């Protein structure tokens, strides 16, 4: 307790609140951009809302003693103040200064969050001062919005005060009326005990004097001069007191993870109960058995509801990622001299909070690539018979248990020849002939691959696409590429809605059991082994008027085979991409708890993790799309070798 920053417990709240204000600010700045470009009068309500957001950030930054953020917010606020309530024009230069100021503010707050030294803000402050002074301040408008001060209030209890009914609880109630209590802690004060409160709010001299008579000492801790108390147009304490609407609870994600883990344990315990019940079933008369089984099934249903409820709590709109993109695109378009129209769809699609945080950088990278490499210069586009303005689409949608995010452009497409040349130069062997999209994706995602000799600032380093792909795969997702020369490129990211619990089909091969996430399986079919033909050591079965390559898990895992009357086959993928994964037997559908295998030593392609079906044995969860891709690749190679 002693020696620790009094703000320690408040910092998470501070960051969360800054994020909220910054999100509002970003939205408003975007709305104001066309106005600024036309040099028009800015709508007063937007200016007002921006002002309030900066004002709040300034207030709370002061409270946590993040001086750089406070300073930036102060200058941003000052500029808005001169724009406010007057016939001022928002100029393009002014808008740029605001955008640069916000970017610096974000960096400053992020630096504190990551424990780094704050970046230098002098240049930005200078340009903000310049745009502010370019508009003469209206003398009639006084500075009505000085931030609420922060006060250190010390109360030393005594028997005499207690006799007058003044104790720490009544003092606290008084402080609460005057402002917001940021922290309260007892202090050992020269052998006796005193209480120290940090209070945010506006205190006047009369209050301070009255308190002093009751053993309450007050001193300002804010660096700014004690705020003048006037007919402030913001209600008392506004900007700091309003931490969150009362119906919203912010919860640390790790607490939800812990809850999810407990529910996972419950799912396993219930599976054990189920197995135990199955063993005694034959020994219990049916009349007595039925209620037992009904209760067990009720618990299963309720457990599923509980799990889904918690999952919903963790879901946040994909818009969290998308919201930043207009700024990124705007800056990039300006830097590269390209014209870009950004279209966003499906921002409301919900996805697990953990996933969204991990997806921010990959999506950012794809968007940067699309603008700097995908889209052409306006002149080139016109020459190619396209509109000068390039189109970039960012879309999200839920498909079953998956969320699909697409980043598409209508640019020049990926130059397959250049990719192949570059890959060969790196020593990656590629057979002659057309390169299919999956192979092309693997090539551009190879570590160190970049078709440009010099990696430019916008697209970052050559490691970019490699990191994009690994991140997505680590999250049990899948990245796909469609590109056609002159028409554009589309990256499709498929991600599971959530990571930890999923429905799975239980499959058996020999004496081994595997779990297969149901979302990966298009259908389960029986195939007559006699209809399977062998070509180039690969098995193909006729299926719905086409042929389906068959991958036998027994061969893949080296499990002894016994002749069977029928092959049970999971169909994965559609159309020409379809692959059948054959097992001996499918015994049912279960809810499974996914334990990921993050250890690099045990991680293997084709294995999504492990689970416990209730009998205490670890069962591997298969990543069928991975296995299917592997099968298709070897099949394609075999086909090419065969045709030469």
């Amino acid at each position, binding site marked *: *307790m*002693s020696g620790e920053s009094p703000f320690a417990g408040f910092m998470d709240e501070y960051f969360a609140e800054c994020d909220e204000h910054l999100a509002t600010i970003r939205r408003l700045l975007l709305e104001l951009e066309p106005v600024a470009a036309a040099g028009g009068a800015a709508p007063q309500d937007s200016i007002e809302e921006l002002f309030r957001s900066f004002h709040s950030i300034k207030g709370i930054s002061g409270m946590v003693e993040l001086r750089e953020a406070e300073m930036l917010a102060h200058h941003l606020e000052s500029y808005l103040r001169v724009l406010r309530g007057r016939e001022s024009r928002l100029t393009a230069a002014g808008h740029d200064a605001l955008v640069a100021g916000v970017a610096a503010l974000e960096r400053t707050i992020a630096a504190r969050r990551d424990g780094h030294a704050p970046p230098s803000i002098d240049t930005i402050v200078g340009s903000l001062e310049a745009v502010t002074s370019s508009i003469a301040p209206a003398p009639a408008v006084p500075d009505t919005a000085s931030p609420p001060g922060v006060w250190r209030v010390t109360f030393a*209890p*005594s*028997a005499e005060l*207690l006799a007058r009914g003044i*104790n*720490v*609880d009544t003092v*606290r109630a008084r402080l609460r009326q005057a402002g917001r209590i940021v922290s*309260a*802690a*007892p202090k*050992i004060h020269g*052998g*006796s*005990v005193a*209480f120290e409160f940090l209070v945010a709010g506006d205190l006047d001299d009369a209050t301070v004097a009255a308190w002093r008579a009751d053993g309450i000492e007050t001193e300002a801790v804010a660096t700014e001069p004690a705020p003048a108390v006037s007919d402030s147009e913001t209600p008392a304490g506004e900007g700091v007191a309003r931490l969150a609407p009362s119906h919203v609870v912010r919860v640390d994600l790790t607490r939800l993870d812990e809850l999810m883990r407990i529910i996972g344990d419950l799912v396993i315990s219930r599976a054990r109960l189920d197995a135990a019940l199955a063993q005694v079933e034959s020994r219990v008369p049916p009349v007595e058995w039925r209620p037992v089984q009904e209760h067990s099934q009720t618990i299963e249903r309720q457990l599923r509801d509980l799990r889904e409820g918690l999952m919903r709590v963790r879901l946040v709109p994909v818009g969290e990622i998308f919201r930043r993109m207009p700024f990124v695109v705007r800056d990039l378009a300006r830097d590269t001299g390209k014209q870009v129209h950004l279209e966003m769809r499906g921002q409301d699609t919900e996805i697990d909070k953990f996933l969204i945080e991990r997806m921010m950088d990959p999506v950012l990278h794809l968007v940067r690539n699309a603008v700097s490499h995908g889209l052409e210069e306006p002149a080139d586009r016109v020459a190619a018979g396209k509109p000068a303005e390039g189109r970039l689409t960012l879309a999200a949608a839920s498909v079953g248990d998956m969320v699909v995010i697409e980043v598409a452009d209508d640019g020049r497409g990926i130059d397959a020849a250049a990719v192949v040349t570059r890959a060969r130069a790196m020593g990656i062997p590629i057979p002659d002939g057309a390169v299919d999209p999956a192979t092309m994706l693997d090539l551009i995602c190879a570590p160190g691959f970049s078709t440009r000799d010099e990696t430019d600032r916008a697209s970052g380093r050559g490691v970019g696409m490699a990191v994009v792909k690994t991140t997505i795969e680590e999250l049990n997702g899948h990245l796909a590429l469609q590109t056609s020369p002159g028409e554009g490129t589309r990256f499709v990211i498929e991600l599971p809605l959530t990571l930890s619990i999923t429905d799975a089909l239980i499959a058996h091969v020999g004496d081994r059991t595997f779990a297969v996430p149901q979302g990966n399986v298009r259908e389960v079919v029986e195939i007559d082994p006699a209809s399977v033909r062998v070509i180039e050591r690969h098995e193909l079965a006729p299926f719905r008027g086409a042929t389906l390559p068959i991958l036998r898990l027994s061969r893949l895992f080296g499990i002894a085979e016994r002749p069977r009357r029928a092959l049970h086959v999971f169909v994965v993928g559609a159309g020409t991409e379809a692959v059948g994964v054959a097992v001996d037997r499918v015994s049912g559908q279960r809810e499974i708890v996914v334990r990921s295998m993050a250890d690099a030593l045990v991680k293997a392609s084709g294995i999504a993790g492990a689970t416990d079906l209730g009998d205490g044995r670890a069962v591997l969860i298969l990543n069928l799309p991975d296995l299917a891709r592997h099968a298709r690749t070897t099949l394609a190679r075999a086909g090419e070798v065969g045709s030469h």
Partner: protein
Amino acid sequence: MVMASLREVCGGGFAEAASGLEAIEQLALGPAALMVLDLNMPDMHGLEVLRFVRNHPAFKRLPVIVLTTRGDDASRAAALDAGATMYLTKPFAPHALAGHVRALIGNSAAERA
């Protein structure tokens, strides 16, 4: 229930605090032979109160009985680490608490003597 059993042991000689800060205030203002501390309080966590009390030279040796509904080993270890003299998990029989209080007050009286 807790209050009733304490009243029975101590007669009128016990005071009640509604919050962690108030508990510390009462300790500071009046001599106390023993503190019964609930971990769940509105402002400070009971463990914070306990750590503060143990940091203060005057209360270093004050017997503190920690009451909690959490009976797991980790909470118990945390409370004992923070300096709890005794750790009781709710629910407990009133006379059990009364017995412990009597024993601890007796001990510290004997130590002082």
